[in-house]
């Protein structure tokens, strides 16, 4: 079974981002970029499926600038077999990304597509669901467990209040939640080997996809800051303040 994994290049999760002075966006000059954490979990899940003998080939795809080749190489070092970069210097919205992924799905015909549930930059949580709609496939979002059984995949999902398990016909789309697995680190020999694995670069035009968006970002601001309050000396003082000053209990 062929598995397609989509990954995104984003600002590293340890970076504290700052809003630009002209409110046009956040300042990404000279900050560390990494693979989106939820995408790392997606790659790991695909690699584990291959180790179990369920997956036969892992194709990793990214939509982004030329520099996203770094994240694709990381995925290859973690165990993906080959990579595709749909190169676009523009920042694309989820619908455009989903349409580009649909074109890749049509070409590659994977049985399972695994994506992160959301990226930590735009926080949209849309692409997997949109790809499922465009492909006409079933979707298992926010997965904490994935089990392929015959022509179906059972996905246990993190939902409000607990867990839900659904059975999806293959081919299907899965998006990862945090507890699905703990991604491994790439070893040095695997990083060296990854440099020789195939990486194909295509353009949105070549895939025949228009990427225009109906959304426009007018401005980006820093959130309202919350100032520190006071330190109380005892539990008794805390209870007194909560009752008489804040009046919340």
């Amino acid at each position, binding site marked *: 079974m062929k598995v397609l994994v989509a990954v995104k290049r984003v600002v590293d999760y340890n970076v*504290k*981002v700052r*809003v630009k002075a002209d409110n046009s966006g*956040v300042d990404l000059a000279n900050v560390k970029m990494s693979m989106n954490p939820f995408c790392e979990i997606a790659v790991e899940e695909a690699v584990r499926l291959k180790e179990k003998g369920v997956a036969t080939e892992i194709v990793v795809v990214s939509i982004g600038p030329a520099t996203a080749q770094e994240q694709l190489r990381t995925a290859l070092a973690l165990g993906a077999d080959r990579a595709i970069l749909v190169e676009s210097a523009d920042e694309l919205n989820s*619908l455009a990304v989903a349409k580009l992924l649909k074109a890749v799905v049509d070409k590659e015909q994977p049985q399972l597509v695994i994506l992160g549930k959301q990226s*930590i930059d*735009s*926080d949209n*949580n*849309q692409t*997997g669901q*949109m*790809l*499922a*709609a*465009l492909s006409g496939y*079933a*979707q298992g*979002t*926010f997965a*904490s467990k994935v089990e392929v059984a015959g022509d179906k995949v059972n996905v246990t999902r*993190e*939902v*409000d*209040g*607990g*867990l*839900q*398990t*659904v*059975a*999806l*016909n293959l081919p299907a789309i899965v998006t990862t*939640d*945090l*507890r699905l697995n703990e991604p491994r680190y790439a070893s040095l020999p695997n990083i060296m080997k990854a440099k020789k694995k195939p990486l194909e670069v295509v353009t949105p035009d070549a895939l025949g996809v228009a990427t225009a*968006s*109906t*959304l*426009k*970002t*007018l*401005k*980006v*601001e*820093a*959130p309202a800051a919350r100032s*520190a309050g006071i*330190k*109380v000396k*005892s*539990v*008794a003082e*805390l*209870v007194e*303040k*909560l009752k008489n000053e*804040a009046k*919340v*209990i």
Partner: protein
Amino acid sequence: MTILVIAEHTNSALAPATLNTIAAAQKIGGDIHVLVAGAACGAAAEAAAKVAGVAKVLVADNAAYAHQLPENVAPLVAELGKGCSHILAAATSNGKNILPRVAALLDVDQISEIISVESADTFKRPIYAGNAIATVQSSAAVKVITVRATGFDAVAAEGGSAAVEAVSGSADAGKSSFVGEELAKSDRPELTAAKIVISGGRGMQNGDNFKLLYTLADKLGAAVGASRAAVDAGFVPNDMQVGQTGKIVAPQLYVAVGISGAIQHLAGMKDSKVIVAINKDEEAPIFQVADYGLVADLFEAVPELETLV
């Protein structure tokens, strides 16, 4: 202009987040139609009809909608919503699951987790884990939007008398099926709806020690949450997680116990009205956002707090 609001419900009752979503619809302005898609969901539809400001309730009662499978529900919403100006759903796990599928079926972009309505086409939403707020404008024919409940005060659950109309939906798409669910059973209020939330972090040391928080919560009528560190350490299940990758809460009172205050946690609770932090490390970043900070050993302070409230 008609705004279609997708009700969040349990078939027998309307979930509180629906009331916040209707509040966002009122800010946009227009006739508000609420869709209740479920199975044997008459009671939820009746509750929706009583909500202040609702013009009409559409009920799609069909076994295929019993478990809100997106493969079945999304085509129904897209069909009903294609003539509307806006389609809104709460940014719950269910809303997040279904609505992007609806948007793609309608070939429009989606705007996720809005926290304010600037005008009928312009909205604010957090990005980068709440470290920046973007103002976005949409020129889409149908604006498909998920609403972060904490950004809008709930409308009154009573006072309306909307007409209830049955709509027929398509049959089961036959792509997916419900296998089972494990929902945590609790008498405490739901995290995102609670007026008081008490959360524990890595400082709790293990899952058993969360009993201290449960006891205090039961006395205050509070919900209990946790930081991602506590969830990752396996102390408590993930659905208790408060933070960017978990639940976003904004109660009247938030008590952070043994939580250092990582950015990712702050993104989930910094809009709370009053924040209390109890931590033995006086340098913990949580004190920078707390209205009342107490530097103390939580294993002494929490039991004492319980006896005094």
